């Protein structure tokens, strides 16, 4: 059994209350940081820990924190990115719903390190009920003197608020999130300047994912060096993985980075294998934006070595044969799945979520969806595959924010690894059309 640092107490009854949370050692990191460490000490521990952003990009958190500008007399902000909208990802929701205080504790400790007097948790609008849970937790924290003026009798004062979004995947991009938090359309900003220089209300701002902020608490408690011992190489610590799709035990799992992918899929401790004993066909390992890999490439890399759940191992081989750890949205597809139809649902998603600000993404995502729709409806043309390839290539890298890349990669990888399936659709539409490519609900209930 791997080490758990974030959700080890998730089954404790009433762990969402402050009392039970504190009985299990909660808020110790606030106590330790505020009373025995300088803000800089905390930043140093985070740097030493090797913690990397858990939202998807995997940027070293300590480095992000050290970029924060600190001009005299200007407010600094910490903003928590709880706009978890990447298909296949639901880990932050689980963490916030089960142990809301883990996030609040991280917010206080991190804000202390960054010198932020105010912080906001921007949560996606659909998670309204989770926002209520967080608000309740914040109320409890205020009542206990963990938020507000002179926290735990120290000089440090801090206010934390929850902000709900309005339903837009793009607000998971940090500058779009800041725009939305300012009450505007969620159009990503043109960078530079980066939020660390000019973020919320033009002030220096750090935007971190929920899991990243929660991970600061164990790092402060055990020390950065100790945290860095968990994991493999530059992938340190533990990671929450949201597992879904055709597996026996979908859910959120905390793993030590470095766990073999094969063990994660087949071990009863985690996904418990493929439903109905079917064969594995493909996996999207890090949320819908990362390249899909066929079974043989997700279990072993192109050199035949077992793939591990780390940032490096998953991306080994580049996009030709590799993928990314991303947000940890682990979607598993069995042998009955139609990759083309699945890709269509993803293309539809990106088309729906494109903000419309820059041309390649606004026009290209819709175009790709239309072509894929034509293919799955049995009207595809032989030239469509190359056309799709060309469109995605012209979107990738040419947009303001990474949504363009995120829309292009799934298309590129599906064509790269499953081209034959596309051809089958186009050449034999009548054969394909009547086959059901997904599980019916009743089939699942019976399984």
């Amino acid at each position, binding site marked *: 059994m791997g080490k758990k640092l974030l959700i080890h107490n998730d089954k404790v009854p009433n762990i969402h209350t402050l009392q039970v949370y504190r009985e299990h050692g909660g808020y110790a990191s606030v106590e330790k940081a505020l009373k025995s460490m300088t803000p800089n000490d905390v930043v140093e521990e985070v740097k030493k820990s090797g913690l990397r952003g858990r939202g998807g990009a995997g940027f070293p958190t300590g480095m992000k924190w050290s970029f924060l500008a600190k001009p005299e007399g200007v407010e600094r902000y910490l903003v928590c990115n709880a706009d978890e*909208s*990447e*298909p*296949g*990802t*639901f880990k*932050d929701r*689980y963490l916030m*719903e*089960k142990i809301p205080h883990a996030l609040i504790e991280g917010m206080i400790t991190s804000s202390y390190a960054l010198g932020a007097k105010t912080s906001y948790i921007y949560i*996606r*609008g*659909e*998670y*309204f*009920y989770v926002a*209520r849970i967080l608000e309740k937790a914040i109320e409890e924290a205020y009542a206990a003197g963990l938020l507000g003026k002179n926290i735990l009798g120290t000089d440090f004062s801090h206010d934390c*608020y929850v*902000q*709900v*979004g*309005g*339903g*837009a*995947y793009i607000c998971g991009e940090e500058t779009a999130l800041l725009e*939305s*938090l*300012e*009450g*505007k*359309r969620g159009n990503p900003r043109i960078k530079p300047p980066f939020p660390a220089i000019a973020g919320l*209300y033009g002030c220096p701002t750090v935007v971190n994912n929920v899991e990243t902020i929660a991970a600061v608490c164990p790092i402060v408690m055990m020390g950065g060096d100790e945290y860095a011992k968990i994991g493999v190489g530059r992938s340190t610590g533990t990671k929450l993985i*949201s*597992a*879904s*799709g*055709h597996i026996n035990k*979908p*859910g*959120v799992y905390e793993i030590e980075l470095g766990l073999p992918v094969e063990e994660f899929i087949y071990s009863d401790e985690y996904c418990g294998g493929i439903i109905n004993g079917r064969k594995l066909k493909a996996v*999207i390992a890090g949320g*819908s934006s990362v390249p899909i890999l066929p079974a043989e490439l997700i279990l072993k890399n192109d050199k035949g070595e077992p793939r591990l759940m780390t940032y490096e191992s998953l991306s080994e081989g580049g996009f030709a044969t590799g993928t990314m750890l991303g947000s940890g949205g682990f*979607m598993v*597809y069995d042998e009955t799945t139609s990759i083309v*139809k*699945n890709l269509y*649902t*993803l293309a*539809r*998603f990106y088309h*729906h*979520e494109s903000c419309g600000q820059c041309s390649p993404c606004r026009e290209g995502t819709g175009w790709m969806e239309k072509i894929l729709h034509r293919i799955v409806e049995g009207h595809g043309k032989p030239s469509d595959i190359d056309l799709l390839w060309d469109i995605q290539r012209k979107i990738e890298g040419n947009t303001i924010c990474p949504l363009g890349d995120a829309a292009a990669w799934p298309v590129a990888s599906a064509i790269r690894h499953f081209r034959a399936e596309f051809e089958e659709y186009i050449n034999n539409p009548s054969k394909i059309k009547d086959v059901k490519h*997904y*599980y*019916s*609900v*009743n*089939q*699942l*209930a019976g399984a």
Partner: protein
Amino acid sequence: MEIKFNEEALATVNKIIARYPQGKHKSALLPILHIAQAEFGGWLSPETMDYVASILNIKPIEVYEVASFYSMFNLKPVGKCLLEVCRTSSCWTRGAEDVVKHIEKRLNIKEGETTKDGMFTLKTVECLGSCGTAPMLQCGASYHENLTMEKVDALIEEYRAANKQRSYTDLDYKNTL
């Protein structure tokens, strides 16, 4: 319907505005639009949006721009219960299409339509972060997960019997995870 917040709603609105630094009250726009949508019939009419603009002292077009950007704001009237069925990858692999078809048949409407009695509107939406408990649908603040046809039927009956408007700001959410 008179477009004016009652005292309770107005108190919440003022509390929200106070969260932001002086002069940055536009930040309150999204949360207030949610409240307005819940208070004034489940959708945002031009009058409602103009009213929100007047509260925040911003131009009405700024409110239209924002409200039309986000998918949770309804710019057209919807039924009392807006059934939002997730259709993205993980839900699709576990039968979301069946759920949609089942509801369509049962309520005798197509996706995007409202029942004649104004009770239900069916909408398909993109990933709601419930992939591990797919298929799922959201109605108001509640997530309904691991759906089966029986569950969907029971839910529709329950909602029909309760006969009340559901909104995202409701407090009686179901804790399902």
